[in-house]
């Protein structure tokens, strides 16, 4: 470990001990990147992975004379997200400029919202693994534009410190974001880390269910800033908070909250004070390090954006949008688990693998729930893992349902079905087409099978004698030989029945 990181690694207090002495108070700011076709304030494509600075125009590059226009779809998505979070939708809302200089911010101000956010005063209830229900109050959800992306070149770490120069790509500049800000979360106690993880997971799930965001944390579609402070037991006074920025996986949210609780507890117990600051989360080492000091008096010189008119979404429109909301993800999960009859472990496996949609669609296409679950979380997940892609990108639910039906009809054994699946993934066609083109169907005409069995029995007279002598368990050796001779294209159970029959019948 480099010296600098050793120095950064703070002393930590045992988590349980920290909870004995202090009460953690949490707050989260989650940025959700909307998946609109174009950017928040101009007609440039909102696209991940294009060539650097190709999705740009005078407006999102902040060129002199450029002016913003509000993307109506982004407004609609923001309202739907707010409604799904139980928020009030403001009758009058406006944008404000947040002024600060940074090279990734083309205009050197962010077009955000300040005193009139589009959504406010909502809440969602999340369920922890213990079954504990926690209601998280949402203070506001507001619209803003994203910054460009800086890449620091020449240094060893890729960080700005030690870099020779930096490159900036404004493709992300101007991409629409909704920032969701919670109220203070008190009473989290030992569940604090899990609350962080579960809350962010819930936001991500809601955004995905609404279709307003691709909601992929690994691509930065959902980013979390975690605020943590500790209050000594018995005190009414809030402690000083830190804001750990850009914690970009669910597991990291949990780890970062836990780390900050343990770190702050150690500092406070040692007679130290917590500095109000932003902190960086280091995924590799699992620690946070000090960023820039942050005070409540940080002066962004907010003022209403004069280039945009105030917005007044009509109540009729808001109610129309409310009708488009999908079933809340938590309610949907309850309904599906009951319908499928999965035990908790089975259902969690599906949820954690992000395969709820896939299983649901497969069942809808005619497969049994258990078979759909086994295939998605078993063989398909394994293949996806090997290929490094998402399971639901390999096959469609309709293809899988067809495959499962072939197995259930006895046309394929599980082993053959895995080969058919490979063929489907390789693009050879539907399961039925692969069965035909690869000649993989279970042989159901007993003629060739009986010939193979007879040959195998005659080839092993000692075994034949044992079966005839009343030891049917000896049949295993013959069954193996028959399956081999049939290249596996036989139903082992059927072979067993026929072997016992033929052992009595042949001369």
């Amino acid at each position, binding site marked *: 470990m480099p010296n600098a990181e050793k120095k950064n690694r703070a002393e930590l207090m045992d988590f349980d001990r920290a909870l004995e002495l202090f009460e953690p108070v949490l707050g989260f700011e989650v940025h959700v990147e909307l998946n609109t076709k174009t950017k928040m304030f101009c007609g440039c494509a909102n696209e991940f992975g294009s060539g650097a600075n190709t999705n740009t125009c*005078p407006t999102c590059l902040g*060129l*002199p004379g450029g*002016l913003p*226009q509000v993307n109506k779809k982004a407004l609609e998505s923001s309202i739907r997200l707010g409604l799904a979070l139980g928020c009030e939708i403001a009758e009058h809302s406006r944008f404000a*400029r947040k*002024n600060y200089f940074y*090279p990734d911010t083309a205009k050197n101000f962010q077009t955000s919202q300040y005193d009139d956010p589009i959504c406010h005063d909502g809440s969602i209830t999340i369920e922890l693994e213990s079954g504990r229900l926690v209601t998280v109050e949402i203070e506001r959800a507001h619209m803003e534009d994203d910054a460009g992306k800086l890449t620091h070149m020449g240094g060893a770490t890729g960080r700005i410190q030690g870099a020779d120069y930096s490159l900036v790509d404004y493709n992300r500049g101007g991409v629409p974001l909704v920032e969701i800000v919670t109220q203070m979360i008190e009473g989290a106690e030992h569940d604090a880390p899990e609350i962080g993880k579960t809350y962010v997971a819930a936001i991500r799930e809601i955004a995905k269910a609404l279709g307003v965001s691709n909601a992929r944390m690994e691509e930065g579609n959902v980013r979390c800033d975690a605020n943590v402070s500790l209050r000594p037991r018995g005190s009414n006074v809030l402690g000083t908070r830190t804001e750990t920025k850009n914690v970009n996986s669910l597991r990291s949210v949990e780890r970062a909250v836990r780390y900050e609780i343990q770190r702050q507890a150690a500092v406070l117990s040692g007679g130290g004070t917590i500095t109000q600051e932003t902190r960086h989360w280091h995924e590799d080492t699992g620690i946070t390090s000090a960023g820039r000091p942050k005070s409540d008096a940080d002066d962004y010189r907010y003022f209403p954006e*004069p280039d945009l008119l105030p917005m007044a979404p009509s109540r009729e429109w808001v109610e129309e949008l409310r009708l488009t909301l999908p079933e809340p993800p938590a309610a949907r999960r309850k309904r599906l688990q009951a319908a499928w009859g999965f035990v908790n472990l089975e259902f969690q496996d599906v949820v954690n693998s992000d395969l709820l949609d896939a299983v649901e669609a497969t069942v809808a296409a005619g497969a049994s729930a258990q078979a759909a679950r086994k295939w998605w979380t078993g063989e398909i997940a394994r293949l996806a893992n090997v290929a490094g892609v998402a399971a639901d990108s390999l096959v469609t639910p309709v293809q899988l349902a067809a495959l499962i039906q072939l197995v259930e009809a006895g046309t394929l054994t599980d082993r053959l079905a895995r080969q058919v699946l490979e063929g489907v993934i390789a693009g050879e066609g539907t399961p039925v087409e692969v069965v035909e083109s690869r000649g993989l169907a279970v042989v159901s005409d007993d003629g060739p099978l009986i010939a193979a069995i007879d040959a195998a029995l005659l080839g092993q007279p000692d075994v034949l004698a044992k079966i005839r002598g009343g030891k049917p368990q000896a049949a295993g050796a013959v069954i193996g030989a028959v399956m081999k001779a049939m290249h596996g294209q036989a139903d082992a159970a059927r072979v067993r029945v026929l072997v016992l029959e033929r052992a009595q019948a042949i001369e």
Partner: protein
Amino acid sequence: MPYLTKLSAAALSELLVSKQVSAVEATRAHLDHITAVDTDLHAFLHVAGDAALNNAAKIDARRAADEPLHPLAGVPIAIKDVLATQDMPTTAGSRILEGWVPPYDATVVARLRAAGLILLGKTNMDEFAMGSSTEHSAYGVTRNPWDRDRIPGGSGGGSAAAVASYQAPLALGSDTGGSIRQPAAVTGSVGVKPTYGGVSRYGAIALASSLDQVGPVSRSVYDAALLHDVIGGHDPLDSTSLTDSWPSMAAAAREGLQDGALKGVRVGVIKELSGDGFQAGVTQRFNETLALLAAAGAEITEVSAPNFEYAVAAYYLILPAEASSNLARFDSVRFGIRVNPKNGSLTSEHVMSATREAGFGAEVKRRIILGTYALSAGYYDAYYGSAQKVRTLIQRDFAAAFSQVDVLMSPSAPTTAFKFGEKLADPMAMYLNDVTTIPANLAGVPGMSIPIGLAPEDGLPVGLQIMAPAKADARLYTVGAAIEQLLETSWGHTMLSQAPALTPTEMFASEEGAV
């Protein structure tokens, strides 16, 4: 054919349409005149001679092929350097944008090109339109054609001087607190600030977004109307652009030429925009004009706008506040000059700082500092917040006045053109020069300045400001054209025809090649 430069845009348009004059001839005449007089006047920062002649030739070819063309196709025009032009440098009069050629055209520029007007070049201005004299240009002053020792007004001194000295029949300006109307007044030309939202701001380098408006500069009310009709109307790229459909301003101006156009027009004279601080000759010509109007059947009444008193103070909080944010983007990262710090490391912060230090002039820095302060936490309510309340009060003053009268009138500026350097050392004196024009920007209503004679004491032009309710720009053109006709009939000539002849002192140098 030097006479071509003396023609109005309307007259030139007739000759072009009837093919008595070609666009190339018209363009060449203006370019020659620019060569003759502008080394001295310095109205232009950039002259695009070759491009202008090429574009003129294309118009001639299209006209020869009897393609349907806009009547103004082939008429030359000058563009204030605050407007983005993709084939010409665009500096806004600032060192920080020296040599910058935008990758796009402002919407108004695109509309001019679509109508076939010939862009002659870019005109001088106070840096980022901050000033009332064009002395704050990073590229040197522009001289007033009436008196070369005097300012041409500002910030659009270049456009006004270009039109007043016959270097172009038309020009575009931008008006945040009077930058079209005050230069028009002190150069004896016509300038119009349209209703806020009436003309697109897309591609106009922003000074104060809630106040800026692009508008026409010309030598006659009718020419301004023709130009207004080309540039006006909704633009989806500007969110503050009005979606209303507009009547023809040219038709409105023609209405003003009918007999009895002024009969029964209710004219409000703003009590607060008179008296102390107004030059005697300005007041005299203003009162004479009112008498002429009354004789023509207009009903003159005095109206009070009690909150105009606070307009300049509110304006000098709102403008710097918005400007401090609008000018943040000038940071060397994506466009414009880049200056590395003499000492210290080349961090983006240091380079931004060194670039802004070297690239911005003193007046720009003064206003950025003012605006940054006014928006700061703890001061916002007292400064920016209060200024916005004043703005509301001024809008109410206008509403109350327009419930009694059709148009409001005042002198366009308290004085005639002052001498170079006279107000440079005293920013407050410079700011107060805009006392007459600022209220219209704060309220978003349209305003026009037309020449009404020369002040007896100095022989310099005096302007009349006419204001109408928001969206009633057409009324300005009707009333303005009527007054213009009335005055010219009483004088027996246009006012600009009385301007001293410009000596083409530099002609030999330019013909033989400049050293």
